[in-house]
């Protein structure tokens, strides 16, 4: 049984088709990285999963039941756009209200436990309006975690978090899926961070799922390249360009050769042409580059 099974989902806003014929499968125990450009239909899909907007067609099944099933919905956690906190109340009070809404027994202990998970127990007495962006994001995630939901839907949960905050959230997410029952859908533009936790990926474009894969499949799909630095980069680039079909300079100042070759072969070729290589390594493209390539029509 999958946590989420979407078939041929569509959503129209007047004449505009935001989602069209989308298929999506989130297995149980998965952290599903949901990726797409701005306006690609990620948030719309997430809102449909959460029952916040009605679908125009297709089906959504959550744990084998209709997405409108109140039993399944009662065990969901969500962070979409705003966390649902009232500005004039403290973090703790906001959490307690959410716990009351969810009918959680021993609400106080549960709230403290969740606040500890996101390292916000020290700021529980702060008014929500006085919290920083990162703190608000942590509170939003904590709200979604209340009641041990089986399915978490988090829209850009890593926005505004500092490095430590991101590390903590990675730990929290990984810990949640340990039992193999709970699943998380995370949409984020921070692909580097997403790659550290996601077990599955879905890439959406213009309202259609263009790729779905596991982390292992992504790893296998990501090409290897050879990165080089030399004393004469311009000359090196020209020389490599003469022999290899795809040579690009990256942000760190390395020349990348994407052709099937070995570092030894490149060093030898450049040495013969009077170039001394100062650094050479092999690496794989990451999720971010894979995604950009896919958006550009699978250039790499």
């Amino acid at each position: 049984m999958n946590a989420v099974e979407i078939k041929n989902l569509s959503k129209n806003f007047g004449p505009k088709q935001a989602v069209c014929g989308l298929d999506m499968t989130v297995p149980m125990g998965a952290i599903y990285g949901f990726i797409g450009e701005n306006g690609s239909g990620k948030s719309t899909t997430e809102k449909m999963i959460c029952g916040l907007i009605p679908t125009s067609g297709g089906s959504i099944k959550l744990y084998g039941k209709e997405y409108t099933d109140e039993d399944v919905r009662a065990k969901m956690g969500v962070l979409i756009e705003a966390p649902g906190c009232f500005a004039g109340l403290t973090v703790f009070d906001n959490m307690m209200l959410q716990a009351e809404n969810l009918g959680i027994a021993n609400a106080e202990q549960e709230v403290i436990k969740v606040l500890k998970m996101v390292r916000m127990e020290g700021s529980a007495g702060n008014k929500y309006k006085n919290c920083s962006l990162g703190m608000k994001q942590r509170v939003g995630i904590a709200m979604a975690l209340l009641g041990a939901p089986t399915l978490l839907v988090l829209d850009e949960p890593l926005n505004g978090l500092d490095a430590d905050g991101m590390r903590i959230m990675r730990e929290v997410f990984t810990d949640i899926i340990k039992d193999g029952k709970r699943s998380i859908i995370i949409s984020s533009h921070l692909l580097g961070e997403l790659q550290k936790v996601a077990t599955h990926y879905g890439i959406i474009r213009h309202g259609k799922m263009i790729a779905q894969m596991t982390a292992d499949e992504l790893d296998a799909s990501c090409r290897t390249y050879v990165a080089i630095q030399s004393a004469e980069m311009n000359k090196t680039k020209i020389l490599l360009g003469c022999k290899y079909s795809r040579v690009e300079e990256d942000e760190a100042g390395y020349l990348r050769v994407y052709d099937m070759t070995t570092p030894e072969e490149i060093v030898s070729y450049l040495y013969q042409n009077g170039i001394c290589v100062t650094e050479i390594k092999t690496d794989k493209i990451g999720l971010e580059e894979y995604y950009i390539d896919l958006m550009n029509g699978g250039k790499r």
Partner: protein
Amino acid sequence: MNNTPEIKFESPTFAKRIKGMLGVDFYRLFNTPLFYIFLAIAAIIPAMVSAMTTMLGPDGNQITLYTNVWQIIASSRTLYVIEGIADYANMNMVFIFGGIMVSIFIGHDYKSGYVKQLFTTHAKKEDYMISKTIVCAFAMACMCVTYFIGGTVGGLLVQYDTAVNVGSLLIAIFGKIIMSVGWASLYTFLNVIFRRYFGVSVASSFFFGTGILIIGAAAIVEGLNLPTGFLNIFLYGASVNANLSSNIGSLITCIVVSGAWAVIYNIAGTHILNKCDVY
């Protein structure tokens, strides 16, 4: 062997859901300055209106709005069409203050993203309508009480006559408190419709709260010398029907009309929430 982990799903009962929602809404109500500001407004306005009678008008004569303390609470008879500010300035004004307060209260639900959290885990939208109606009706009932205190104190200070049929006065007060339920459901419904546009929500609540549509309709009906009793089926009509010459029939009218509209608006609001997007 099937390795799929077993998951048990169980949603809370209606009683548990509504208890949780009411708990949240009442907590918010009592912890927002907005509620106390509107309670104070409801007390101050009738006192101020009473104080106006101590002032001199443009012609140099003392302004006489009322002759009796309790006219500040309710009109002497059923007046669908008002002839002056005194006919209008009674406890019915609470429904205007209440409309604005409800708009702000529900507006915060949408602005903060609270409804997204709520509607994700609470599939049944009627819970929201019921909870908001109850809490907002309670808030308006409290405003009726502070209005009564403010109006009575103000009226006594300017030494109005206090003679009244106590039974009718009590029916008028309870009738208007009961009407709070119907008005609260109307405002909740309006705010569900205009959930994306906070300003429109406030304006529409104010517009309907003034009863201007019924006042206009009543003027036409009276002009045509037609019976006006049917206007009591509307919230404003039933509200003005609870006055200082009320009898038990007026109270029953208030209960039936308020209850019926509350059901209608709750069903309509639930339908809209089920069919429309949550922003």
